[in-house]
């Protein structure tokens, strides 16, 4: 009976926490549970949540990616820079924008590829590799922008963050579609299954004849692409590429993933819960704002909540 309860708490506890937090906030402010506020929260978390998809995959394989913020900023800056270049003759502005976004995304893929190659072929722990690319990426952003923001990116580009499909903001549409795809990928595909299996027992997967190195490189590349997409969304939202954009994203993203129950030792976690984790972090911020808690204290409160949540999870896992 206790065992059943424990497993139930591990599997569904996070949804209960989400429910309770929502109730508390709704008590504090009836405004909290209105459609417009929920859509607002959704749009606020969309970028962190998109990065968190890639991070979940990486963490499931018992790796880590600290370079997400730098990669996001770099992709955003390069896209913004290209938007300021006059399109080559005969190319419509709309097409040029797609090219600029494509280049930005490819920069992210390339950065992820480099992370993967150094980790897998270089045999360097991903924690160190991505700490290195975090620094390199930020340096490149500063070089590329000359330390100054790139402004005025145009109405069309702004639609990525401010446009709506019906009454739903585009960032939420992007986020939710990617989450559905990632969920299907992990649940139903062979490669998705290997992502979990590698994090649980890498050697067993290798003995079964699976090319684990290729798999890891592919997942790092995908994570880089997600970071780039989020960076482009942020650039659109701010209508500018800031040299310090997305600094510290790695912490918020990792917090969302581990709050969602993923194990940093690999093999455990789900994208659905990662999304809930991101949502919880944001509504904590919301709630603390409603309570007029000073911003400095908010940082402390958030960190404490994460530590307590993980401690509870650790206790629930108990013997394992």
């Amino acid at each position, binding site marked *: 009976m206790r065992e059943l309860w424990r497993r139930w708490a591990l599997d569904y506890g996070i949804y209960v926490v989400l429910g309770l937090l929502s109730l508390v906030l709704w008590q504090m402010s009836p405004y909290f549970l209105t459609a417009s506020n929920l859509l607002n929260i959704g749009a606020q978390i969309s970028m962190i949540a998109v990065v968190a998809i890639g991070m979940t995959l990486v963490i499931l394989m018992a790796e880590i990616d600290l370079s997400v913020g730098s990669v996001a900023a770099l992709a955003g800056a390069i896209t913004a820079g290209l938007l300021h270049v006059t399109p080559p003759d005969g190319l419509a502005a709309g097409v040029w924008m797609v090219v600029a976004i494509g280049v930005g995304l490819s920069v992210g893929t390339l950065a992820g590829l480099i992370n993967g190659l150094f980790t897998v072929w270089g045999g360097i722990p991903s924690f160190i590799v991505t700490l290195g690319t975090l620094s390199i990426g930020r340096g490149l952003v500063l070089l590329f922008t000359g330390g100054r923001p790139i402004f005025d990116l145009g109405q069309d580009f702004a639609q990525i963050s401010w446009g709506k499909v019906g009454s739903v903001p585009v960032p939420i549409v992007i986020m939710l579609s990617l989450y559905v795809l990632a969920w299907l990928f992990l649940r*139903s*595909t062979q*490669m998705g299954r290997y992502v*979990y299996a590698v994090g649980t027992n890498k050697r067993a*997967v290798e003995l079964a004849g699976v090319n684990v190195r290729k798999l890891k490189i592919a997942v790092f590349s995908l994570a880089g692409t997600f970071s780039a997409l989020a960076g482009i969304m942020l650039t659109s939202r701010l209508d500018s590429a800031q040299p310090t954009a997305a600094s510290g994203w790695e912490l918020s993203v990792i917090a969302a993933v581990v709050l969602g129950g993923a194990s940093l030792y690999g093999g*455990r976690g789900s994208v659905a819960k990662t999304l809930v984790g991101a949502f919880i972090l944001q509504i904590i911020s919301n709630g603390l704002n409603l309570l007029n808690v000073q911003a400095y204290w908010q940082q402390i409160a958030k960190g404490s909540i994460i530590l307590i949540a993980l401690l509870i999870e650790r206790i629930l896992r108990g013997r394992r």
Partner: protein
Amino acid sequence: MTKQHPLIELRDVGKRFGGVVALEEMNLEIYPGEVVGLVGDNGAGKSTLIKILAGAHPHDSGEIIFEGKRVASLNPSSAKVLGVETVYQDLALVDTLDVPGNIFLGRELIRFGVGALRVLDKPSMDERSQQLLDRLEVRLPHPESEVGMLSGGQRQSVAISRALFTNPKLVILDEPTSALAVREVEHVLALVRQLREQHIAVLFISHVLQEVFAVTDRIVVLRKGRKVTDLVTTETSLDTVVGFMVGQLDGDSHA
């Protein structure tokens, strides 16, 4: 015991690691459907012999003959193609996957799709692994649960079932009972008997001689890299086997 041709035959097989002789003048025959116990003290050469048969180490000298044909050299995949499957001591299971997931690891059935987007055919995998478990008379209360939640004996059954999926001719079990509770050992021994009935040869490695006596047809004793004797299980005794293992008895091998 049978008058058939041997499934696998080793003739004067030897293996050195640098200056250390790990195995020498090894002569061994295993017949289809025969359960052969391999015993010996630590360092007697059991692991080396297993690894040669599994294709993990190439042999330096002598010949390996499989179903009457000389095999030039074995590697892990050619050994599998010939029909030799090995269940290693440390199992190599993925704890977060269910039973069918482990049985089909690396050879998942695909419903459709290519490359990174091959969609798993879970119902077929569930069904076929259940058929396999039924054939082996392995009963698992919840095949849909993660194997990390199963007992040691159940995990061992899954590991053995996984090895049997390809219909091998010889299964090497490296200390399959070493981590098990007494009650669960019987479970694994029953599975070994089941394999014999299905005419699958088994090379059974164990430190526990009672188990070896309970389940084998023949017992091969290794000592210091050599085969010291090859006994019919029903015609020998525990004391005799121990005597050979520690070197008090020193018989000619009468293979």
